[in-house]
């Protein structure tokens, strides 16, 4: 199994470090041909406008859409925005997931936060499943999950949706790659395993 991390911009090195810690073969992806070598893709945190513009400039949009129809993709923060159908703003989006997101939904940097989250789905990789410690940085929220096959994986106490899954596609508005806790990466690897 080989996992790619989209390395146009953002904290791709942090994702690669987690994957390598888990003993997974991982590669940086910057050009369309590199997608042929991987079984799953992570789109990291970063600036979604920058990532989108570079994806357009280097003809990655359609190859990424084709990839996501067959193989698992997980987007964290900017990556989640990029996967969505609707970000309520004019910027390039893959439109693979039937979710509507709102950018910078919690405010500016001064409003960034950390919080413990209950994520029942992680029971698949963690028997006792303690709360997942999540870091939100100028984070988007998932305003709505807009298809019958799309499900909510995690919410804040006030009901705000912060993680969702639709088949092989995963979106989190927080950054599991900034934690020593690698359960979310393990969870994604189970999706890649069953897809392969």
């Amino acid at each position, binding site marked *: 199994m080989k996992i790619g991390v989209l390395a146009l911009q953002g904290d791709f090195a942090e994702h690669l470090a987690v994957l390598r810690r888990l003993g997974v073969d991982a590669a940086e992806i*910057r050009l369309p041909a590199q997608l042929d070598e991987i079984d799953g893709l992570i789109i990291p945190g970063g*600036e979604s406008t*920058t990532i989108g*513009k570079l994806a357009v400039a280097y003809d990655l949009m359609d190859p990424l859409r084709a990839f996501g129809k067959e193989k698992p993709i997980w987007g964290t923060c900017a990556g989640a925005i990029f996967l969505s159908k609707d970000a309520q703003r004019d910027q390039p989006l893959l439109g693979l997931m039937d979710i509507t997101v709102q*950018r910078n939904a919690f405010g500016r940097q*001064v409003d960034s936060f950390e919080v413990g989250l209950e994520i029942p789905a992680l029971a698949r990789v963690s028997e006792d499943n303690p709360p997942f*410690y999540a870091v*939100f940085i100028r984070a988007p929220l998932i305003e709505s999950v807009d298809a019958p096959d799309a499900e909510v994986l995690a919410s804040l106490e006030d009901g705000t949706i912060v993680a969702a899954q639709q088949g092989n596609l995963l979106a989190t508005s927080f950054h599991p790659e900034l934690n020593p806790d690698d359960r979310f990466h393990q969870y994604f690897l189970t999706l890649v395993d069953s897809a392969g």
Partner: protein
Amino acid sequence: MTKNGQKEVASFKVKAGLAQMLKGGVIMDVVTAEHAKIAEEAGAVAVMALERVPADIRADGGVARMSDPGLIQSIMDVVSIPVMAKVRIGHFVEAQILESIGVDYIDESEVLTPADEAHHINKHDFKIPFVCGCRNLGEALRRIGEGAAMIRTKGEAGTGDVVEAVRHARSVLGEIRRLQNMPDEELMAFAKDIQAPYELVKETKELGRLPVVNFAAGGLATPADAALMMQLGVDGVFVGSGIFKSGDPAKRAAAIVKATTHYQDAAILAEVSKNLGEPMVGRQIADIPDSEKLAGRGW
């Protein structure tokens, strides 16, 4: 660590985390809302809101201070990417003002005239993260010790000459390589020698890199300059006067963004370097007297 359901804001993890999201990107100096839109459209990951770019500060002389908060706000209003702004070294009230208007990052910058010749701001006091300049590892770790959540090598701002940025990056990264090969019993003497906090020296050795994100700045003017700094091993780049003092800012800005992503691909670097128009008119470091150099500011 937070309890389930309880939000914790302004932790160091969250402050340093925003810089991690800027990695592999270009932060551009802008002096108007219109510039800021051009920068965002070109793919900048953040903008530095200023009244004058460093080349003009250098040319105008006089005292350089924090920009008008109204101007900074007008830039915050028009872009969705993070907005940074500069305060004078040691001027914690300018920093309080920027925090109150909600900028995303504060640059305690040698480009402005220092307000304190002995002390930097205690950056732990603020909810807003800070970026600070450095010329070597000791200076970087002193700033992190004071609470900086991001570091940039200083270079020499407003010159269009990349030589100082290279010197400072090589100094920081070279000292880290030396540190990695050092036996633990030598760390205390090394910390004393470079005037850095021992715990941060130890952490840097263990990580094999600075404990926070490290960008290059000061004198970058071309896509090749950005790729050079990336290949040397920095996490991203600041481009100040190099964009809006050039003949075709939008085109040059987009080219530098592409070069920062594809920094290892010479064919792409060649492609994006074509037909960019006039670069900024530079000033060789060798022609600038020491008294006019900005990088020496900071203690």
